[in-house]
């Protein structure tokens, strides 16, 4: 009797395609959480996250796209499918668009955001988590996905690059820019919660470029 929990994702995938139901269940239970959380963090909607998760594993069952071990890990492969499913839904429903870069001023910073204060200071833990969640959801999609994959799903740059179909350097630069945007948006959230006046930047030397 094979102990499926000790097998790698690739081995489980092979067994699963050979008709081993336990292999399929083991692989599903191992990978469904990160896939579901990825879809939830990208869309902010539970029903979308459920649909995406189901569709990812249905694609696996139907073998619509072949897995190539030379191109990356099974996890990266699954995230790639999940990402495509999320983007399809964004295209279809256009209900999850985030604040685009057009909202930012010439220097790349939103003029509503102010102060040098720690953007996350004085918040309770719950408020902190909610603030970060809202800020991530407000990012443009191509920045949001790198934050969700690398910072929230704790993927390596290489696996994230495989899932996104881009170079590692692209992931790094997008993540850098995305985190800069997050800092600024969290400042804005903090300011609006504290009711402080929004007068523009107080430290012109602060630079996130």
């Amino acid at each position, binding site marked *: 009797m094979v102990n499926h929990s000790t097998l790698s994702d690739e081995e489980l995938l092979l067994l699963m395609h050979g008709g081993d139901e336990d292999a399929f269940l083991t692989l599903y239970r191992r990978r469904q959480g990160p896939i*579901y959380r990825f879809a939830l963090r990208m869309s902010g909607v539970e029903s979308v996250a459920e649909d995406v998760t189901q569709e990812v594993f249905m694609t696996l069952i139907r073998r619509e796209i072949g897995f190539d071990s030379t191109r990356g890990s099974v996890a990266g492969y699954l995230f790639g499918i999940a990402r495509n499913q999320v983007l399809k839904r964004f295209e279809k429903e256009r209900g999850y668009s985030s604040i685009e870069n057009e909202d930012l001023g010439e220097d790349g910073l939103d003029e509503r955001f102010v102060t040098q204060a720690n953007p996350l200071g004085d918040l309770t833990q719950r408020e902190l988590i909610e603030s970060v969640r809202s800020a991530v959801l407000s990012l443009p999609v191509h920045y949001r996905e790198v934050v969700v994959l690398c910072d929230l799903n704790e993927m390596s740059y290489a696996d994230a690059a495989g899932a996104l179909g881009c170079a590692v350097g692209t992931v790094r630069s997008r993540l850098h820019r995305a985190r800069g945007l997050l800092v600024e948006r969290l400042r804005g959230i903090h300011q609006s919660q504290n009711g402080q006046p929004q007068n523009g930047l107080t430290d012109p030397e602060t630079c996130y470029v």
Partner: protein
Amino acid sequence: MNCSGFQKNVHALAAERLMDAAERANALRHAENCSSCAAALADARALTAGLKSLVVAEQEIEAPACVENALLLAYRKRAEQTPAVSSAVPLVRRTPFRPLVAIAAGLLLIFGVVFWRSIIARKTTPTKDERLGITTPTPEVKPPNPPTPVEEKPETVIATHRQRRTPGAVKPARPFVQDEITAYADDPQIASDFISIDEDQSLTPMETGQLIRVQMPRALIARFGAPVSAEKADVPVTADLLLGEDGIARAIRFVR
């Protein structure tokens, strides 16, 4: 390190992602001497802490049980419809076409008998092979082992057998149609394209092989969908058989 260099690395520094040790030390030293960069590092660290808090808060979130139930149902339904594939088979390969495996085994037995009883004409026609899409691989050809003992040593032709398959589609047994004979009217020898008889997925992929010319009972070509007239049923037909390194037939084409 200057402010520009520091800003490029501030988030990697805050997130404690892998950095060169010397570069990290330089960055931290710069932050000690530059208030704006120190503030940027503080912001980046606060963000990192916020992101980690979000990860911890959401780590138990999973897909609901109904998703697993639906997928299990779909998996079982699929398993009923599709025969199991050997775990040694690459994921992009398809289910073997079992009836043709039996035909291929029968053909091989018949060809072995025909070898002992027939005179085999051997020619190599590389230009014809190129027209028909058969390519000769580089580097040099290795002399293969003959699959069965023969009275005359066959002339070896090394060819690469390419199976054109549409991903996701099961290739049907290719019909042999009369029109294909006239399609090769310019070539007095060749009467048809190669017809694959290698549907057994457990066979090893072919790197080199042998092309041997055989004669076989005309009635056998009916298995490939070719019409056979009653008056010519006793007349043997000449064919080229493509064998793999393992001696198992991969494809057949008919010769005038």
